[in-house]
């Protein structure tokens, strides 16, 4: 007996398979977001809604503007024009750290494990609203000791779940690439986010660890979190995403469930080049 494949595709009932489609319950809405670097327009997205409680994949060929768009959504970069609403909060002019406190936390393509801090310190850092993070209160441990114990307990539970407990007191710099990805994901969960943004969670992870990472991402959704991830690995996209958004040349060219994407003509054109299956017409140029 195989378990019922976990999915949240029912959340997309009635949503048309087209770019900019309105979702039933969007957690994140981007509208008219545009970012240019000099003359190069890296991102020019008319409209995107991200469904709450689902795993959405953001894919596209190299240079499609995925990571730039990702930075714009998490406020690590400011768009030239356009608005982003997260749970109804306008993100314009909001610092990146405040976005995290609103409940949207991100990871990075190049893993940012804090090398010279222990794994447990990496985890505890993620706790929000820590009393002991004020300089004056830091001098009086009795003010924050209890909260610190709670945070450490939560961190230990997450390390257990991500199978990193044995590395608890080692420097994060001694972890392997895959373990760092796990640590970064676990650390993001310390923020207690509603939405987790993963920038290429599979990059540089060996196949053995991939499956467990996939299960962890599914686990986030099962706990009610919304996941948006950028990925190149099509196997991962097919296996775990409920909805796929395809970008090319800074624009969103297709949206839909994973099955519909593989056969989408615009997507094939974007990945393989336009007109690859129609006869070349040299006269036209």
């Amino acid at each position: 007996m195989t378990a019922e494949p976990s999915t949240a595709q029912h959340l997309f009932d009635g949503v048309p398979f087209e770019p900019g489609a309105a979702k039933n319950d969007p957690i994140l809405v981007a509208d008219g977001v545009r970012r240019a670097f000099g003359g190069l327009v890296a991102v020019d997205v008319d409209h995107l809604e991200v469904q709450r409680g689902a795993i959405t994949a953001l894919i596209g060929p190299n240079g499609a503007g995925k990571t730039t768009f990702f930075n714009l959504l998490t406020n690590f970069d400011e768009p030239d024009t356009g608005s982003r609403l997260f749970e109804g909060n306008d993100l314009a002019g909001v610092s990146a750290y405040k976005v995290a406190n609103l409940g949207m936390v991100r990871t990075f393509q190049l893993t940012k494990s804090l090398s010279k801090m222990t794994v447990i310190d990496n985890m505890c850092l993620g706790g929000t609203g820590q009393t002991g993070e004020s300089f004056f209160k830091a001098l009086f441990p009795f003010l924050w000791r209890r909260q610190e114990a709670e945070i450490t307990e939560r961190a230990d539970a997450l390390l257990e779940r991500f199978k990193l407990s044995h590395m608890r007191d080692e420097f994060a710099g001694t972890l392997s690439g895959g373990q760092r990805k796990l640590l970064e994901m676990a650390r993001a969960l310390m923020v207690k986010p509603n939405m987790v943004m993963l920038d290429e969670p599979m990059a540089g992870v060996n196949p053995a660890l991939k499956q467990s990472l996939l299960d962890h991402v599914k686990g986030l959704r099962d706990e009610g979190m919304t996941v948006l991830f950028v990925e190149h690995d099509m196997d991962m996209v097919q296996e775990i995403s409920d909805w796929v958004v395809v970008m090319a040349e800074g624009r969103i060219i297709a949206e839909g469930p994973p099955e519909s994407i593989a056969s989408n003509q615009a997507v094939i054109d974007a990945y393989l080049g336009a007109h690859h299956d129609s006869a070349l017409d040299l006269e036209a140029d």
Partner: protein
Amino acid sequence: MDWGAIIQNSFRGFIGEPFIYFSLAAMGLNMHYGYTGLLNFGQAVFMAAGAYGLSMAVVTLGLNFWWGLLLGIVVFPLLLALIMGVPTLRLRADYLAIVTIAASEMFRIIARSPSLDRWTGSSDGLTAFANTFYDFNPFDKQKRYFFGLFIGNQMWVVLIGWIVLSIVVLIVWMTMRSPWGRVLRAIREDEDAARSLGKNAYWFKMQSLMIGGMFGALGGMFRAIGTQSAQPQNFITDVTFFAWVALILGGAAKVGGPIAGAAILYGILNFTDVFLRQLVENGYVPESVMDGTQVGQVRFMLIGLGLILLAIYRPQGIFGTKEEMALDDR
């Protein structure tokens, strides 16, 4: 050879006044660089802020000593940290380095300008502003204390210095074990990661700059109190780099590192000074190699040589751990 004088002088360097103010300055740098990753190449300006804060309050403004302490330890360093930090802390680390080194030179040059004589005493500086401090001196001015190392007034400065230094060590030790210190270390490792976890990296860096600057100001103030004078020449860039040497020697990001570094640095400086001088005087070293007036330069050459050896064989400093250094290369 007068071994008694050699030992006495070395020991004096180990625990005396320069040790105290360079320890304090290096503790501040440790907060900046060791824990937060801020490159401050102008610690001398924070030291000057402490010295001039006190002396200008008393001499120029005619306030009492206690207002001088407030101005020198709190107000001046905080203002400086804001002026230097607001424009640069949002940018890469190198910008702060440039601004701090420029600010420390600007302060020194402005302070010694003759047109400001009325305010800063120009190149002569300000004097006789710490009488209140010495009024509380319980030691007899004529007697020598602590194995005959310090006369009464010096003993008072050194004693208060040790107490202040202990308090600073305690503050650093406590805060670095707290969640506040954890955020600083996270910023040192990767600012964006800290930001992505909801930490206001800019504000934490500003706090670090302020607090490390206040430690530096304490150091500068001790230097001023010890000699009862605040002069621009006391805060040249060399002063900043002596503090850096103390920090690197002892080991960055270790609570005791700067203290050990400063103690060893001044212990060795004093030892070589007296030792070489005695060698010359007793004819062990011929005049053709070195005479008494060259001792000052030669001892810095030896310190330089020592630092080169340290960089090769123990780059993590005396208290640092090799494992942590190795993580940098990954």
